[in-house]
C-alpha cells in the first residue's frame, strides 16, 4: 500500500501545523512511510513522524506565544472546570450562590475560546505560517 501522493487532509493539516522550515522533513517522512513493509512497520514510522510534528509544534508555540498567554491557556480551562464543579456540587463554604460559580465557569469558558484564538493568531498569523 502506498500513501496518497497528494496527501490526505490529515497529512496536509499536520504539515501546515509545522513551522515552514520543518515542512520538507515531514513531507519526506510521510512520503517514505509507503516504503515500510507491513502495518506494524508503517505504524512505527508514522508514530515517529507524529513525534516530530509534536515537537515542531511545541517549539513553534513556545516561540510564538508569549509566556503569559501560555500560562493563561493552562489556568483558564482549569478554572472553568473547577468553578463548574463547585456549582455542580453546590459548594457552600464560601457562602456564595452556586449561580455565581456557574457564571464564573461560563466566563472562563469564554475566556478559553478567546485565548485559543489569540494563541492561534500568534502562531499562524506570522509570515509563512498560513496553511498551504
Amino acid at each position: 500500500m502506498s500513501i496518497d501522493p497528494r496527501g490526505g487532509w490529515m497529512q496536509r493539516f499536520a504539515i501546515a501545523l509545522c513551522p515552514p522550515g520543518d515542512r520538507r522533513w515531514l513531507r519526506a517522512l510521510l512520503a517514505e512511510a509507503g516504503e515500510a513493509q507491513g502495518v506494524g512497520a508503517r505504524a512505527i514510522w508514522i508514530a515517529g513522524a507524529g513525534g516530530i510534528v509534536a515537537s515542531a509544534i511545541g517549539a513553534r508555540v513556545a516561540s510564538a506565544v508569549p509566556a503569559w498567554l501560555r500560562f493563561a491557556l493552562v489556568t483558564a480551562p482549569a478554572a472553568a472546570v473547577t468553578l463548574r464543579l463547585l456549582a455542580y456540587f453546590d459548594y457552600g463554604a464560601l457562602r456564595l450562590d452556586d449561580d455565581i460559580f456557574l457564571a464564573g465557569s461560563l466566563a472562563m469558558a469564554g475566556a478559553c475560546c478567546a485565548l485559543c484564538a489569540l494563541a492561534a493568531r500568534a502562531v499562524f498569523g506570522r509570515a509563512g505560517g498560513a496553511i498551504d
Partner: protein
Amino acid sequence: MARRPNSSKQTDALLIALLSERGRWRHGYDLGRETGLKSGTLYPILMRLDAQGWLESRWEDEPAPGKPRRHLYRLSPAGADEAMTLLEQRRPEAAVSLLAADEGGVA
C-alpha cells in the same frame, strides 16, 4: 557539562551508513533499515546534520509510479571530512574499515 554535538551512538551509526556509500543518494527509510533507527530518532539527526551543513539533500527526480517523491540525502564533502574525523576519534575501528573500503573502491 554540555554534550558534544553529533556524539551519540545513533549519530555514529548514521554517519557510518552515509560514509559507507559516500556519493550515493539515500532515502530515509533505507537509512533507517540499515542503521536500525526509527523515524523519530533518525529524522531529528538528519535535520541536525542538515542544519550544520554536513548533509546535502534533494527530492527524487523520478518517483516510482503511484508513489510520492522521496527526499534523498548524502554527506556533503565538508560533512564527510568532519564525520570521518569524528569517527576516527570515537569509533576508530569503523573509520579504519571505511577508509579501507574507500581505498579498495578507488583502486
